[in-house]
């Protein structure tokens, strides 16, 4: 009953707490390495362009920042076309 009422009043939106967590995750990762959204887009375009010059890319390549504790890494995932 309580959950039902909650669902009606929150009209299916995620809680503000989970929104805050999501926003913090992105902002802190970027703050820590000094990377803006713009820089991430530039990196993604340039890395994909570089790989595409030598190999054939298949599907959706991804370049993103990931964090483990206070350490960050660039996670590059580029699917390649097989012969």
């Amino acid at each position: 009953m309580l959950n039902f009422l909650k669902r009606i009043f929150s009209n299916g939106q995620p809680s503000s707490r989970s929104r805050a967590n999501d926003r913090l995750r992105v902002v802190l990762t970027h703050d820590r390495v000094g990377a803006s959204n713009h820089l991430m887009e530039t990196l993604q375009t340039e890395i994909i362009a570089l790989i595409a010059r030598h190999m054939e890319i298949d599907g959706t390549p991804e370049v993103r920042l990931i964090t483990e504790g206070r350490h960050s890494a660039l996670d590059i995932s580029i699917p390649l076309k097989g012969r």
Partner: protein
Amino acid sequence: MAKKNPDCQVYVVTSGKGGVGKTTAVANLSTGLAKQGYSVVVMDLDIGLKKLDLILGLENRVIYDIVQVVEGECTLRQALVKDKRFPDLFMLPAAQTRNKDDLTAEQVVEVCKELRPDFDFIIIDCPAGIEKGFQNAIAAADKAIVVTNPEVSAVRDADRIIGMLESAEFRDIKLLVNRIRPDMVRRGDMLSIEDLIEHLCIELLGVVPEDSGVVISTNRGEPIILDEKSSAAQAFNNVVQRMMGKEVPFMTLQEESFWGKLKRNFGFGR
């Protein structure tokens, strides 16, 4: 002056963002430590925007300040203001009509060096921001307490401060979460302690619930830690115990009962 320990622990209390409760924390932790019989000195380094004297209720006793000490206008002893309640608690006031550039990090280190032999704890109240005042405040400290609120902007600033403390080779950085409201966390409308630790990745020193009594105690110039019934006082007392090296379990935050709320709203109690 009765010093209990041969060594002296120098803490800086910092946050990046202003208004999260740094000075309140400094006033309460220093008072709590003094109540436990330690000799404590608090140093207000918010030059130009001093508040610690007001929070401790010592504003009428201030004669000299730290800038006058380093400029040789008075001795360090003359500038130390003795607390009303505890004979082993002293405050070194900030200067109100000067600014952060009137002090160097070396001078702060020098003042601390002179205080170390006589005190168990030196607690430095750091100004908000990451500029000169922050650099001065962290220069002489061995340990850092980062104060934050469960709120995105405060957490972002805390993260930046933690990064800067790590670059300054601080090994002992702990988190003090202030003004949490368990009812809001439960409703999904506030970041929880677990959320904060996950984002900031540092050890928790304490959790202080939102407590309207803090405003009242600040009005009176009496740190809330002396009002043992209040939930904030219990939380600050636990932090004091941890600073003394004791292991104290983190209290489960009790939500205010219906009757408690009713009493509070109708002005009963306290």
